[in-house]
């Protein structure tokens, strides 16, 4: 197909614009990444935010990832939150999605409404907080897990996926005398794997990125997840001076890295896990937006 002159000009401009746009998405990362490698000497001379550092310096990372540091502990907290949290999320979300997908379930419309109503109305921040507080979950790891066990929206996406599985499979299994348990574990779960994987990733990323629940429920620094430590470092300074209560104790360091460099390194440390899994999982995310919303 031949393009007109106007269309060719448009194509050049469009490509140019999209390249510029892509760089706008990337520049903040690259800028912070290069800042995180600046050495003390160079910082004194040239300041932070240099596009290309003269020498790659790992000082900030060494300080952050030292196995006795708060950041390292927080990394482990975040990791356990992702693993335990996502497992429990799926263990509760799948059964509900599966049961709500059964066409002849008694009370199905009532149950759907029961779940759906929570998507458009909530008690609000304070009553939610009081429930968690009165259950004795304050300052406990479980305060980050239990209140978010099921995301109704994602549960419904999963249910829509399961509804797309031909009902004949189910009926045939019943004919063959399979028990409901066998049908679920041997037929429905394997066939729902794409949805389970996608929604599992949604939950995992959500757990990794969450901080507000931890901020209101946890008081003990040792229990903080990574995002909350990042927030404390970005907002409250670095706590070099108060080695006992500070976030990073730099007592053994003769020459701590400059604040801006350390902050940059901290941003990178808390983003890298997402960046590592991103190329492998992004297609699942995109599918997740459309699973259950685009029916064909």
């Amino acid at each position, binding site marked *: 197909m031949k393009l007109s002159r106007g269309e060719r000009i448009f194509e050049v401009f*469009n490509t140019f614009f999209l390249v510029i746009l*892509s760089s706008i998405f990337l520049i903040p990362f690259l800028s912070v990444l290069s800042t995180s490698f600046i050495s003390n000497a160079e910082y004194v001379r040239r300041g932070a935010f240099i596009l290309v550092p003269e020498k790659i310096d790992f000082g900030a990372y060494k300080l952050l990832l030292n196995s006795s540091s708060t950041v390292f502990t927080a990394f482990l907290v975040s990791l356990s939150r992702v693993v335990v949290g996502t497992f429990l999320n799926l263990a509760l979300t799948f059964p509900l999605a599966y049961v709500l997908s059964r066409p002849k379930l008694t009370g199905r419309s*009532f149950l759907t409404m029961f779940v*759906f109503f929570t998507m458009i109305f909530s*008690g609000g*921040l*304070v*009553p939610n907080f009081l429930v968690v507080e009165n259950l004795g979950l304050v300052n406990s790891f479980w305060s980050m897990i239990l209140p978010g066990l099921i995301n109704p929206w994602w549960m419904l996406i999963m249910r829509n996926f399961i509804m797309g599985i031909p009902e004949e499979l189910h009926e045939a299994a019943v004919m063959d005398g399979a028990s409901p348990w066998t049908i679920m574990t041997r037929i429905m779960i394997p066939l729902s794997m794409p949805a389970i994987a996608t929604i599992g990733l949604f939950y995992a990323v959500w757990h990794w990125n969450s901080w507000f629940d931890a901020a209101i429920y946890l008081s003990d620094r040792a229990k903080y997840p990574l995002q909350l430590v990042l927030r404390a470092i970005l907002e409250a300074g670095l706590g070099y001076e108060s080695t006992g209560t500070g976030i990073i104790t730099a007592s053994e360091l003769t020459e701590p890295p400059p604040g801006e460099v350390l902050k940059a390194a901290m941003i990178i440390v808390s983003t890298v896990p997402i960046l590592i899994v991103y190329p492998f999982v992004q297609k699942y995310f995109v599918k997740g937006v459309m699973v259950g919303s685009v029916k064909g």
Partner: protein
Amino acid sequence: MDQIDLSLPKISPSFPPKKSGQFLETLRGLKRDRFYYLLIILPLLYFLVFRYLPMLGVVIAFQDYDPFLGIEGFWTSPWVGFTHFTNFIKSIFFWRIIGNTLIISGLKLLFGFPAPIILALLLNEVRSTLFKRAVQNISYLPHFLSMVVVAGLVRSMLTVQGGLFNQIVRLFGGDPIAFLTYPEYFRGILVGTTLWQEIGWGAILYLAAMSTINIELYEAAAMDGANKFQQALNITLPGIAYVIAIQLIFSIGGLLNAGFEQILLLYSPGVYGVADIIDTYVYRNGLLGRQYSFAAAVGLFKSLIALLLMVGANRVAKWVGQPGLW
């Protein structure tokens, strides 16, 4: 793939049943479905405890709840009726936080709503699949970052000591500006950050809708001499109009959510005048200030209006011939 359907199955009020014959039938049904009900005991318990119990907890909005009494406080605290609501409505903060919520949300809608549509239209014209996919993958990466990281990136871009934006300001001979502390810049920063984070993700749905448009329409239009721009205007846009409509309606339904975490992470007392929204106000008064009852009242006020907006949006969706959410 010919239609995007965001609907839930139609809910008919068949449960709980009214007639006694139906009641027996329901009992029999429950017995027959006992395996399924056993499976969802924990999920239902979750909804009761963490979603419905807080809805009962809003009674404290009509009390002077004493946090030191714990659970007992829910029934021993004195009732004060609508005092907290009237205090809120009469307070000098009422119009400020309502105004800020609507203005910030409105600005985000004004710029953030058309932007993904435009991006999707531009991406749709890219002929190299590789380039298209690369741009897409980069564009929705920010969506997966935590708000803390995004706020950290914004701060480091805007910092006075050599942040990228101030390097540009310097380049043009200006003095460095602490952007985040100036009320005149703050809302712009919020809108820009949201655009940066969500535009690529928002475009996915539109691109998906575009891929369902019948290719023959374009061929026929090209045959009739329509150029690319005319095709985009007369085929692509009408082809995704129903997705645009439904997205717009539900954005309006969520109008009271102006971006709580984002604002909480970026604002400071100096910009409260333009940045304090309902959610941040509830957080400061309720959880930091421990005025539980008052904050619960403000929160309930918001939840109720949000519910009305949602119901209204759903009505409009149905009125324009869309399936709606329920």
